[in-house]
């Protein structure tokens, strides 16, 4: 990434953070249903998604806001969806947890943990059979890697040579259960080796490192047309779902990771390196907040769907 891109990556991370804070506020005021945020995981989203090309596709999970926004989704239409309005990406039918946006190549946000893993092989099969250079990125959590579908998906992708970038966002939590209670393995990525798949683990709070690793992985997949598993080590700074008091979280662990907030890290690094002034950073932050106010106003102005929508789009 050149400097301009690095500043842009920081801005994107700020945008994602501002978006999620907006959703949290809307929920607290009972203007939107509860949701899952990925506060603290912004570097993973921006680092990976910015390494993709426009004709690549994405499948993701319940913590998808960052992936969508990194891909250029309109926060107004996202908030409209979260608030169940007609102008949402899915007309209000999906709500916060399943936003798909065909125009952006976002085929699926699955809230069934593992749904993204079970569909991605088919999307990649279409890519390889219908031609083109495109690859498919699949974001999933460390929890999803406990579901059998993880194993089934990786094995099939390996055997069929499917062009998939598997991205495990290992945020140390699986809802209310810490990762260490669910596996004896250190990381998820080494399992890829059992399927004959290439893999790598990267510091998920360092957006430059994620971006560099993702670029290399994407280049490998484009060349070999084989799947690759990238594990992004990060941390879920907020609760599983809004609201959640995190009473079950070890405060010291949380503090350690808070100190490594990816936005803080990127911002400080750019300032230290002399690529960004504090004032410019504050301006960026103010700008994304302004954008969110507009987005929320747009969403709230959007009407609820009419009752006929209850039964449209069931069958093609």
């Amino acid at each position, binding site marked *: 990434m050149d400097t301009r891109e690095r500043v842009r990556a920081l801005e994107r991370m700020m945008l994602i953070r501002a978006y999620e804070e907006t959703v949290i506020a809307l929920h607290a005021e009972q203007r939107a*249903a*509860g949701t899952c945020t990925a506060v603290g995981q912004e570097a993973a989203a921006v680092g990976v998604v910015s390494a993709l090309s426009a004709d690549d596709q994405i499948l993701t999970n319940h913590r998808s806001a960052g992936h969508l926004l990194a891909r250029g989704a309109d926060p107004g239409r996202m908030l409209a969806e979260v608030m*169940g309005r007609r102008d949402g990406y899915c007309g209000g039918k999906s709500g916060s947890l399943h936003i798909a946006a065909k125009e952006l190549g976002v085929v699926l946000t699955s809230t*069934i943990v593992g749904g993204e893993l079970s569909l991605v092989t088919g999307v990649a099969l279409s890519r390889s059979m219908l031609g083109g250079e495109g690859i498919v990125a699949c974001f999933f959590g460390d929890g999803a890697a406990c579901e059998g579908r993880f194993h089934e998906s990786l094995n099939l992708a390996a055997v069929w040579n499917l062009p998939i970038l598997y991205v495990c966002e290992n945020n140390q939590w*699986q*809802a*209310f259960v810490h990762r260490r209670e669910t596996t004896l393995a250190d990381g998820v990525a080494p399992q890829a080796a059992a399927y004959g798949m290439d893999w790598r683990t990267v510091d998920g709070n360092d957006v430059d490192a994620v971006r560099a690793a993702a670029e290399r992985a994407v280049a490998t997949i484009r060349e070999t047309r084989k799947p690759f598993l990238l594990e992004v080590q990060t941390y879920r700074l907020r609760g599983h779902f809004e609201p959640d008091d995190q009473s*079950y979280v070890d405060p010291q662990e949380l503090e350690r990771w808070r100190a490594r907030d990816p936005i803080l890290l990127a911002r400080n690094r750019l300032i230290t390196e002399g690529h960004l002034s504090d004032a410019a950073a504050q301006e960026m932050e103010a700008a994304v907040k302004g954008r969110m106010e507009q987005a929320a106003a747009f969403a709230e102005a959007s009407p609820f769907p009419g009752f006929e929508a209850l039964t449209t789009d069931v069958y093609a």
Partner: protein
Amino acid sequence: MQTMTVTDAVSAALAEEMRRDDRVLIFGEGVATKRKDLLAEFGAARVRNTPLAEGIIAGTAAGAAATGLRPVVDLLFAPFLCYAMDEIVNSAGKLRYMSGGQFAFPMVVLAMTGGGWGVGAQHNHNVEAWFVHSPGLKVVMPSTAADYKGLLKAAIRDENPVLFFTDIALGYAPGAVPEGEVVVPLGKAAVRREGADVTLVSYAKSVHACLQAADRLAAQGMAAEVIDLRTLKPLDEETILRSARKTGRVVVVHEASRMCGVGAEIAALVAEKAFGDLRAPVMRLTGPDAPAPASFPLEQAFAPSADAVVETVGRLVGLVPA
């Protein structure tokens, strides 16, 4: 009598049964985190978090049940049961029969469902009819705090696999629960209100819509009998048929979709066994044949309302004047 929410009634039932029988244990994703009280009282061996994998959670329950334990597993939301269908249907439901009666499967599967949370069709899908259709299983879906407690206790004591559904909308609903031991037998419906003009059959939150409707109908001079099925399998045919024969008019109400739902079963039952006493068509009022929407007003409109019940009864009476 004490007042408690459905959630607390479920917790009380779990604690009492675990105290009574040390073969009872509970596990699932986040169970030990969320049920700190049970963890403190019964220890980490009997209150367990699991990895995120519904299939093996249900399979582990079936294997444990076959060999001396009495597991309760929390699979969280009904759509997640899709990952555990093999273990529930092909193993827990069939293996007693397939083994010629050598093994029993005393286990309870908990799952929440229904509208009220606004998070859409991958958390909200009323699939209780699938399990009613499958052999070897029992299915419970109560409507009151007292029944959540009493039926869960009965389910844990039952020698068969029981699917125990909690209607999300009822989770925080407070209700009167008798002090002391409350065990409500599986397979017995409750007549929540007596009436001679029409029978409203329902379960879970729809019972409350029916009770509201019955109030309004009473104001119009119609006496509605309201039956709360409580257990969907085994089905209390006797209570349903007795009422159908008395009133001659039956409306079945539930949030689950129409085709091959529990309402279809009850309508078919009545049309076969109370045919001679029917004065009007048997009507079903159900959720639409569509996934559950997330959008709040749509989600609210998905489940049958008291208004819709009143309107349906009105049509029924208009259709075939008594």
